[in-house]
């Protein structure tokens, strides 16, 4: 299919069995149904793309109502995806889990679970200090953060304690174990960023790569 991906909601994780008794840990997502709300073409927008809407709502503010007047439905989430040929796609068209089938590789983009302000040990995997040999309050300390008067400052981007999680994360090359368009479900091998009920964008693996010049 021409569209590179769709919007989904993470439901949770469980496991599924293969015929031979092996099992996969899978993430279950509600994939679509999404409605095409806008088609972007080189003539009108300077690039190609498709805007999809997900999760219908009853009320929205006037500017959004105006934007969605062409499909006569209101959506909580609007996201853009790449498309091979925009002339294949029409506004109002439904995109569902049929887009992917078992065995396909996808990239999943979501917002990771927020972990608050965390120290270097949890955030960056620092080793911390020794537990014993006369140490006191150095157990989870970051250690040296640089030299002295030269350079005279801490270099930019140094790994330190700070806010962790709640960031946009893409997990690449996940395998679709099963796709069930009738129930709008997809079963994805491995984990997908974010908590339950969070929004994830599923794209065909590698569809965001820049073409080689």
């Amino acid at each position, binding site marked *: 299919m021409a569209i590179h991906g769709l919007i989904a909601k993470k*439901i949770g994780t*469980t*496991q599924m069995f293969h015929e*031979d*008794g092996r099992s996969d840990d*899978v993430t*279950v997502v509600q994939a679509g149904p999404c409605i095409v709300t806008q088609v972007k073409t080189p003539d009108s927008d300077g690039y190609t793309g498709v805007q999809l809407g997900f999760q219908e709502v009853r009320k929205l503010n006037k500017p959004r109502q105006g934007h969605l007047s062409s499909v006569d439905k209101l959506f909580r989430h609007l996201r853009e995806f790449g498309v091979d040929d925009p002339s294949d796609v029409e506004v109002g068209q439904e995109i569902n889990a049929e887009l992917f089938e078992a065995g396909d590789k996808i990239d999943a983009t979501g917002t990771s679970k927020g972990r608050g302000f965390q120290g270097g040990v949890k955030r960056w995997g620092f080793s911390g200090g020794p537990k014993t040999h006369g140490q006191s309050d150095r157990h989870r300390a970051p250690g040296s953060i640089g030299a002295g008067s030269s350079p005279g400052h801490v270099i930019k981007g140094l790994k330190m304690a700070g806010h962790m999680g709640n960031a946009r994360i893409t997990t690449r090359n996940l395998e679709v174990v099963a796709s069930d368009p009738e129930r709008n479900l997809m079963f994805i091998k491995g984990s997908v960023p974010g908590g339950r009920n969070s929004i994830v964008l599923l794209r065909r693996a590698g569809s965001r790569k820049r073409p080689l010049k």
Partner: protein
Amino acid sequence: MEASELVKLEPNPRIDNFTPGDTVRVGIRVTEGTRTRTQVFEGVVIRNRGSGPGASFTVRRVSYEIGVERTFLTHSPAVEYVERTRRGLVKQARLYYLRGRSGRGARIKEDRRNR
């Protein structure tokens, strides 16, 4: 919506109902190189764990005076059949107390009630 409820599970008609305390014969599909055969493990069910696709049960037997426990995933296709050979009358759901016992102390009374 709970993810574990969304996985379609086909109930295996060759798995009898059983509860902890029952004695069962479990047929497991084993692949050795290219050959596939069914291995049988018989013993007392000492626990039923979980629900949905991750559910499992543990069977204990004493072979050559060594206690052996195997845990099977109830919905795994490798579990070909579970045959209940004896009903046991026990008061606990988890029969871990059998581990420290042998001989007469490890016996389980047969449940002869009609259910």
